[in-house]
């Protein structure tokens, strides 16, 4: 009978005694490579889907608000921005709410920034590092996570009921500043801690005192990151609804003094939407609110980029 495998045996003999093993190993290696490549591609796919969902969510929200809000602004431009709302349906513009929002946010910044920055300087530079600093830091983090509705209620009970400040820009700014304090403080503290040791030493090495070093070297060095923290806190305050609802009221009013009441854009949006009074204007307001916050975030990025060039 003819040996069917004679040719193969000849070939194996030529290739040497290990040839069979080698062939098997080679095949296994290829199979493993294939599995690895498959796992790699699968992981890549899952990760990109997750990333895609995040971006999509943002894109859909922006698009949705844009589609619904743009007509309200475009059909009455620029009167939607620069005129007062009128009538039972709050038709017309939203000018006083824009002014109220900017007014209360600026006032809150004025109150919160110096306190937060000075507290951060104390924590990072002067306080003896240890238990007390840890407690203060924990308190700040807890303050940052207080639900804003609770903060609003507290503002109402404390500033308005207890201290008899009328519902106004001032009382709302005070309550908002409580919300912003921990954000600014932690950002500033991190920024100060990130200033390299050798930069401080450069100043001490010239016979500068601690305060001179902090004021002239450490704070300027940390400034970009501090500003970023400020802008983020500002964005938080502008979009805040519950706190201002409780402490500033909802009367549409053009604030002049800090003791005037008013209605912020976020509250206006809520009032228009909750009873379906004027959804068109609500979307218009939402769009403007989002544009303002988006601009602020872009500004924060721009500041960081600008300073990073020389650092």
């Amino acid at each position, binding site marked *: 009978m003819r040996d069917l495998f004679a040719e193969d045996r000849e070939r194996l003999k030529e290739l040497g005694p290990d040839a069979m093993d080698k062939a098997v190993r080679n095949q296994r290696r290829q199979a493993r490579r294939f599995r690895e490549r498959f796992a790699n591609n699968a992981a890549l796919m899952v990760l990109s889907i997750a990333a895609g969902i995040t971006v999509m969510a943002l894109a859909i929200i922006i698009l949705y608000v844009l589609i619904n809000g743009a007509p309200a602004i475009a059909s009455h431009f620029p009167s939607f921005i620069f005129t007062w709302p009128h009538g039972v349906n709050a038709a017309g513009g939203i000018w006083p709410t824009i002014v109220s929002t900017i007014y209360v946010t600026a006032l809150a910044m004025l109150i919160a920034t110096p306190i937060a920055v000075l507290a951060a300087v104390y924590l*990072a*530079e*002067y306080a*003896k*590092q240890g238990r007390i600093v840890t407690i203060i830091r924990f308190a700040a983090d807890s303050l940052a996570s207080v639900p804003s509705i609770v903060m609003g209620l507290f503002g109402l009970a404390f500033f308005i009921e207890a201290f008899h400040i009328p519902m106004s820009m001032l009382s709302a700014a005070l309550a908002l500043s409580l919300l912003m304090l921990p954000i600014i403080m932690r950002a500033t503290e991190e920024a*100060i*801690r*990130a*200033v*390299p*040791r*050798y*930069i*401080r*030493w*450069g*100043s*001490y*090495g*010239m*016979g*500068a*005192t*601690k305060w*001179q*070093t902090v004021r*002239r*070297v*450490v704070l*300027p*060095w940390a*400034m970009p990151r501090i500003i970023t923290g400020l802008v983020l806190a500002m964005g938080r305050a502008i979009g805040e609804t519950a706190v201002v609802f409780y402490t500033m009221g909802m009367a549409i009013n053009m604030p002049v003094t800090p003791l005037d009441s008013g209605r912020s854009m976020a509250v206006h949006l809520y009032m228009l939407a909750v009873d379906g009074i004027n959804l068109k204007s609500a979307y218009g307001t939402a769009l403007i609110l989002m544009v303002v916050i988006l601009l602020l975030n872009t500004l924060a990025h721009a500041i960081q980029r600008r300073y990073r060039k*020389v*650092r």
Partner: protein
Amino acid sequence: MALDPVNTGALAPAVVHDMPVYSTPLVAVPEETTFFVRNMEFHYGDFHALTNVSLDIHDDAITALIGPSGCGKSTFLRCLNRMNDLIAGTKVEGSVLFGGADIYGPGVDPVDLRRRVGMIFQQPNPFPQSIYDNVAYGPRLQGIRKKSELDGIVEDSLKRANLWKEVKDILNKNGLAISGGQQQRLCIARVLAVEPDVLLMDEPCSAIDPTSVQKIEDLMAEIKDEVTTIIVTHNMQQAARVSDYTSFFLQEVAGEPAVLVESGKTNDIFTAPLDKRTEDYITGRFG
């Protein structure tokens, strides 16, 4: 061990000084001696870093401190302007006399000391301000406000630091926007602007380009008559090139305190060291 002060910046009440302090030193300090150090011990918390260091630093000369990494030469340098006070948990014992007075004695303000004993670091550390403001930093701290006076100091200091020609047209540019070597010379100009008696340099040339190294070595020679300079360097050719005196530090056993093995005229140390360990280091047997 609380060794990491990176971001605390806290001025720790760290220095314990157990030596009795006399208004006149017990030993006659030799003439022309800037620093007179006797039996100095240094601790980082529990770690005994330097032991029994006795050394004279001569006026208007350049002294090089050499030795392998971790031998305490930078630590010793920082003792001379009390920079170690800024590190929590440090402790100095023994005598460190500057101009005949104990710098660790009561009533000595480290801030005043550091005005007279300036320091340059390995990493160039210009402040995030213009070149002009960097150099004017020290004079302004001292209350000099007049523009013409500041202009003069800035120009003079930058000239002494061999940097004037390169930056005279860009004085308003940010100090961080120039090259690393230029930044280091800017830092030297900044220190020279307060007219210190002593300049401490902690490996000033190990992070910069060769051209700038050359310029820094040149300026060291140029200012030698006015400013006593002490330089820590890993580069033995540099020590041999620039210094008049050399001190060799060594930590023989890891975990044990380092010692000052030998010091003397640079020429003697490099050609005829007395100690076998110095010879081994200089001929490259370790380190």
